[in-house]
């Protein structure tokens, strides 16, 4: 069994396959996997050579053998994979001349496509394709699954889950980093390691992309974060072009010498990738054999990650933003009910700008499908922010769905000391990985004293251990109780924080604002309690990062405790405070109409706030906003105002509207919205900037825009149009290849909802084309759609 040797002794992989096949005549663009059936003897021979060179593990010739990449009319995927495994085994039979145990690894490479939201590949589709390939590999007799050359963490996650759900084989996972230590999709080493450890792969590491020397700094970084066996498989240097061919120029001797260093640095399974040959592997095995190799030092850092970055919950406290949560927020509840994704996303962007490190995500409302909403929100959030997310739900199916599709290692809120809760949550953490918040309450409720809460923390940690979940992946929430109803509440919480830290060495989290419930001037109590909690060992406060008082507490604490070198953060945050207060944002002569025409966003808000003191919101809209927008729109049409200016005005008007809307809601009325209009970028099309421009302008003119996003199937558009009885649909397409989807959408709309008009726009369209596909209106620019909508609905 390979797992008995992994991490205890040095294991040798094989070297490149593609380079050797090219030498034997594989043409660029030809599917290498076809050789498993067409040139079996060549494949067997390559494996034989590697075994003879001393490899313990060889990879099957199945790098591109998945249903998404391998498109061959002539061959069946299962046959290709079966032949690959059989060839590797035959290579072992021919190439191993002693009694050593060797292994065949089912090789899995990337699909060559980008997953949603950046590309069009669905996560579950990718997972299924990897799972299918892994299943064939296991059935044919592979000893392990080796996933390699992944440049996208999300695709890696799909592959690991696919392999684990479909086989019982060990899973190795190696990724491709660039010289800056970044994945091609932007993730760094810490983020990738955190995710892979969470998914409980058996070994992880790097391959391809770089030569052995360039890999050293990345290996160093990996060793800093992982406790798992580390694999390193470099190329034979960086690829160069020579006579129209790609060549690699690190010779076997040099390669082997570098690999020695790599073992000294901590790798325990080594081999080669592109450009390496049996000669490289032979040199490597003879130079490195007998070297000691083992596991890295065991790490105890608590780390969560997104696709882009990792956040360490360490000595320096971190801020978890609490704003994505409907509790007690009328507007947020409404946004969830209306499916107003923009509102939710803006909360995320705002909190990120205000300094949050992690965002709590809670979308639970009694009358919505929480699982569906959670999935949608997590997906959307991960397409605009790289902050790690904290999945906050009591609904097990929503929790699992979110953990499954999350790109990275999430934080999970929460488990508690009740057996039922632990039975539900820990298996999910074991499968998908994550740092889980443990609430110190159980069947008997919340203990009144600190000792009782600490005991529950101990129980949670012990139960987690049964699942192999380490204390570093648990953060304890000792719960803050309202001080107005329990005078000892704050003291108990602070004492419990200290106890838990001291007794178990785990990190802690706390929803801070609870403490002040029912008291006046809550921010004062909150901020003071926050500082006290930090002083008692709180790692992560779940707070509102927009609160000035909380920010003061946080930055002051970090500066005072030496977590803010040269007080840089503190100075950045508060250094300009005086200047900000004295500067009046509004030049005296500027009117709101001017501000909008000039596209001055801040001035537009400020002036509107002044105006509503004297005038009615609706009157301001009619006398200031609309005339300004009309003026700018006219200028755009005449060619004196250009797109950026038009949009700056639109953004300024949007700010003014926001102030007016608040005012109207205060007085119990609401801003009247005009007719509903659906906007969508059609199926297959992922460019949505044009659609977004139209949306901003239509909203300026108070139309109720239903933004369905990009890559939207015709059926979805039709269904929504029927459900909400929409009379105008705007469609955007940017490429000749997607105008077909536009035509199909129009055809279906005509059939199902004949009274609905369709306007179209996009770079590839013109009037003639629009007529041909049966659109009612072609908007050559964004303003034209506004005029059309006005004409249509004012009749």
């Amino acid at each position, binding site marked *: 069994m390979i797992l008995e040797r992994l991490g205890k002794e040095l294991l040798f992989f094989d070297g490149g396959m593609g380079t050797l096949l090219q030498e034997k005549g594989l*043409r*660029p*663009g030809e599917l290498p996997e076809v050789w498993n059936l067409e040139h079996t003897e060549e494949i067997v021979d390559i494996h034989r050579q590697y075994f003879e060179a001393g490899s313990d593990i060889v990879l099957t010739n199945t790098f591109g053998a998945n249903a998404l990449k391998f498109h061959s009319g002539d061959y069946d995927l299962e046959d290709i994979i079966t032949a690959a495994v059989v060839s590797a085994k035959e290579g072992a039979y021919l190439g191993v001349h002693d009694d050593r145990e060797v292994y065949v690894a089912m090789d899995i*490479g*990337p699909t*060559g*496509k*980008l997953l949603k939201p*950046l*590309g*069009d590949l669905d996560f579950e589709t990718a997972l299924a394709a990897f799972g299918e390939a892994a299943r064939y590999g296991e059935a044919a007799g592979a000893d392990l699954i080796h996933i390699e*050359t992944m*440049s*996208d963490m999300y695709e890696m996650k799909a592959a690991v889950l696919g392999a684990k759900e479909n086989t019982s084989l060990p899973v190795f996972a190696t990724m*491709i980093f*660039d010289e*800056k230590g*970044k*994945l*091609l*999709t*932007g993730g760094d080493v810490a983020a990738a390691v955190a995710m892979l450890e969470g998914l409980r792969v058996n070994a992880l590491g790097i391959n*391809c992309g770089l030569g052995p020397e360039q890999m050293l700094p990345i290996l160093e970084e990996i060793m800093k974060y992982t406790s798992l066996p580390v694999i390193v498989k470099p190329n034979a240097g960086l690829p160069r*072009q020579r006579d*129209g061919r*790609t060549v690699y120029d690190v010779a076997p001797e040099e390669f082997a010498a570098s690999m020695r260093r790599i073992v000294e640095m901590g790798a325990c399974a080594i081999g080669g990738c592109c450009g390496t040959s049996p000669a490289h592997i032979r040199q490597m095995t003879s130079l490195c054999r007998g070297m000691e190799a083992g596991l890295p030092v065991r790490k105890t850092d608590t780390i969560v990650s997104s696709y882009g970055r990792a956040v360490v919950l360490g000595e320096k406290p971190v801020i978890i933003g609490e704003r994505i949560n409907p509790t007690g927020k009328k507007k947020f509840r409404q946004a969830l009910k209306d499916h107003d994704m*923009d509102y939710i*996303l*803006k909360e995320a*962007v705002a909190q990120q700008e205000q300094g949050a490190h992690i965002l709590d995500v809670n979308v639970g409302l009694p009358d919505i499908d929480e699982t569906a909403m959670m999935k949608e929100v997590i997906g959307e959030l991960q*397409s*605009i*922010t*790289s902050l790690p997310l904290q999945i906050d739900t009591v609904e097990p199916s929503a929790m699992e769905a979110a953990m499954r599709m999350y790109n990275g290692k999430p934080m999970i809120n929460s488990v508690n000391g009740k057996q039922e809760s632990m039975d539900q949550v820990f298996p999910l953490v074991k499968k998908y990985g994550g740092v889980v918040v443990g609430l110190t309450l159980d069947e008997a409720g919340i203990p009144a004293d600190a000792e009782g809460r600490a005991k529950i923390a101990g129980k949670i940690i012990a139960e987690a251990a049964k699942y192999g979940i380490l204390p570093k992946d648990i953060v304890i929430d000792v719960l803050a109780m309202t001080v107005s109803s329990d005078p000892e509440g704050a003291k108990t919480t602070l004492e419990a924080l200290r106890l838990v830290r001291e007794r178990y060495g785990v990190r802690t989290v706390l929803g801070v604002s609870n403490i002040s419930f029912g008291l006046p001037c809550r921010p004062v109590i909150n901020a003071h309690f926050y500082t006290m909690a930090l002083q008692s060992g709180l790692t992560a406060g779940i707070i509102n990062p927009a609160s000035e008082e909380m920010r003061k507490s946080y930055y002051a604490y970090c500066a005072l405790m030496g977590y803010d070198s040269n007080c840089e953060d503190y100075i950045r945050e508060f250094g300009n405070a005086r200047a900000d207060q004295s500067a009046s944002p509004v030049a005296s002569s500027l009117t709101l109409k001017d501000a909008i025409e*000039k*596209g001055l966003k801040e001035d537009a808000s400020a002036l509107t706030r002044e105006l509503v003191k004297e005038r009615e919101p609706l009157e301001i809209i009619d006398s200031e906003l609309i005339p300004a927008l009309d003026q700018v729109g006219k200028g755009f049409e005449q*060619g004196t105002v*250009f*797109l*950026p*200016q038009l*949009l*700056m005005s*639109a*953004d300024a008007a949007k700010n003014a509207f926001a102030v007016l809307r608040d005012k109207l809601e205060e007085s119990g009325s609401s801003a009247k919205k005009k007719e509903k209009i659906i906007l969508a970028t059609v199926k*297959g*099309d*992922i*460019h*949505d*900037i044009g659609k*977004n*421009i139209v949306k*901003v302008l239509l909203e300026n003119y108070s139309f109720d825009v239903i933004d369905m996003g990009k890559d939207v199937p015709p059926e979805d558009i039709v269904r929504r149009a029927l459900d909400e009885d929409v009379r105008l649909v705007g469609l955007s397409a*940017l*490429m*000749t*290849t*997607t105008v077909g*989807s536009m035509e199909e959408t129009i055809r279906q709309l005509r059939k199902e909802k004949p009274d609905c008009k369709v306007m179209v726009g996009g770079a590839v369209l013109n009037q003639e084309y629009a007529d041909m596909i049966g659109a009612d209106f072609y908007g050559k620019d964004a303003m034209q759609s506004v005029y059309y909508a006005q004409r249509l609905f004012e009749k």
Partner: protein
Amino acid sequence: MSMMDARTKEAVRYLGFGRQEADEATLAMVARSFEELKTAASPRIVWRIFDLNPEGEDSLNIGGMKIHSKSLCRNMKGCCQAVVLGATLGAGVDLLMRRQSLTDMAGAVVTQACAAAMLEEYLDGEQEEIGRELEREGKYLRPRFSPGYGDFSITHQRQILSMLEAPKRIGLSMTESSMLTPVKSVTAVIGVSAEQEPCHRKGCEACEKKDCIYRRNEG
């Protein structure tokens, strides 16, 4: 405005200003956007040289890829090799634009234009370098030509990406409908010939669509 650098000029052109001068607010946004792109973008390129053979009247073959295209044949006349390339600014730009679309639509549009200009500038630089290398062998480059120009179908992108192993090498892939992902990416072919072409007409000027509002000012 004569002080404007080349990429600012390009960005302003993409924003639809045509021959008009951009206003100060727009120029300030352009400058800010280039600044933001410095961290959001990570330009990467992969290229290889392949043999080029004419195949009949309006077709040619580049490294096994058969292309039927009059405009490309015209562009490649007299070439016996071609550089095939793929380049991308990376996924960070997609995320930046998506974020801006929420609260700052003008910013998103400006970023889109600046990213396009940045990508062109990056490609110009890389092309110059490739050209310098080839000149030592007495070979010269033609203007680059991308799928989607003229009648060179964008469906060829699939094959180009595969010939270059672009997904693995630089993280550049495409959707089912032949759209490149990340969004700010390019594939192109560049003719290699033994003779120096006197007229270096660039892609934009070579286009037949003379009434395009984004057309570069000629002369």
